């Protein structure tokens, strides 16, 4: 019988030892409450595509954050082969997936996919200090104005 990958147990222990901040992020809570998800929008507008148009760009962002352009699939790289300086600017894909599972369970369980993946990614980036909640809020306002300026 197959077993759960032993690396998962190692990952679980490693991540648990980091004492991550489990508190909700106000900005993301607001989006969770007020944002309209693709399931509703596609039904209202009669669109067949099961995924929002941004799903692939979100996937690409996750890949880009993981390990650079040419190693996006090398998500299980041994720690001894990693460059700590570069690592600080990256978001390991396995760790991101672990955090996504946890964050979805804690905060975003009622949000459909891929919106929950997006919220979890933003949450992880804020929690790790890779982006800041206030600057994200400001940048969202700019993007919103831009998209609605037509």
């Amino acid at each position, binding site marked *: 019988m197959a077993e759960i990958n032993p690396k998962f147990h190692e990952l679980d222990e490693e991540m648990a030892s980091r004492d991550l901040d489990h508190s909700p992020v106000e900005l993301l809570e607001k989006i969770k409450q007020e944002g309209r998800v693709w399931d509703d929008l596609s039904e209202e507008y009669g669109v067949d595509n099961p995924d929002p148009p941004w799903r*692939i*760009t979100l996937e690409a962002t996750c890949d*880009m954050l993981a390990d650079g352009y040419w190693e996006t*699939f090398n998500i299980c790289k041994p720690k001894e082969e990693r460059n700590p300086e570069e690592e600080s600017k*990256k978001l390991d894909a396995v760790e991101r*997936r672990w955090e996504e599972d946890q964050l979805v369970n804690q905060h975003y369980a009622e949000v459909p996919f891929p919106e929950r993946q997006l*919220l979890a*990614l*933003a949450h992880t980036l804020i929690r790790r200090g890779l*982006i800041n909640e206030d600057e994200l809020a400001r940048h969202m306002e700019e993007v919103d104005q831009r998209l609605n300026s037509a």
Partner: protein
Amino acid sequence: MAEKHKPAPMVDEVSEFEVLEIAVRELAIEKGLFTAEDHQHWTEYMHTLGPLPAARLVAKAWLDPEYKKLAVKDGVKASLEVGIDWVNSMPTKFGTPSDYCNLRVLEDTPKLKHVVVCTLCSCYPRPILGQSPEWYRTPNYRRRLVRWPRQVLAEFGLQLPEDVEVRVEDSNQKSRFIVLPVRPEGTEGWTEDQLAEIVTRDCLIGVAVPKPGKTANDPRPVRPAVNPYHHH
């Protein structure tokens, strides 16, 4: 006279999630976490991916015993014949480390059924199968499949006789997998195109088997992790 076409429906409003996706991406670029050009190249490549090449690989293998042998022996080489170059079709033009370039094709028999999972995260053979479905990513599927494979397959609607062995393959840093299912009865004389149509994504993951007339995946309920795995 030209027919009048109704414009395709489109969503005519900007959602906060759409704004969030753009804002996160642009901030990451602004902070130098990656470049806009790399992101664009990668996105364009990802848009080309889907399950059709894998379906065609299976259809070809059903029709050509020699190709089937090649597929089982060397999945990467066999992929070339369905237009997937695991090394050179990447935007980098030099592939990625060996972990990513090792596709294994798991051949089912009437007494052996394979099914694929990634218990660590959600590794998936994207170059030949596209994006993974939501349920494949869930802890519920990833944890329970290895413990109760026969029961989980039954939940997917795949009831297997007791004398059929179920083999779970766990994707890892070394390999990606697709399933080569048994060709179903009632497909004698079919062309490659006809056969490829019934090899759905779920058949290639192994949670379904091909059937004449069935060309789409069933909707799958996504279950929460009722018994979340915690460190011990």
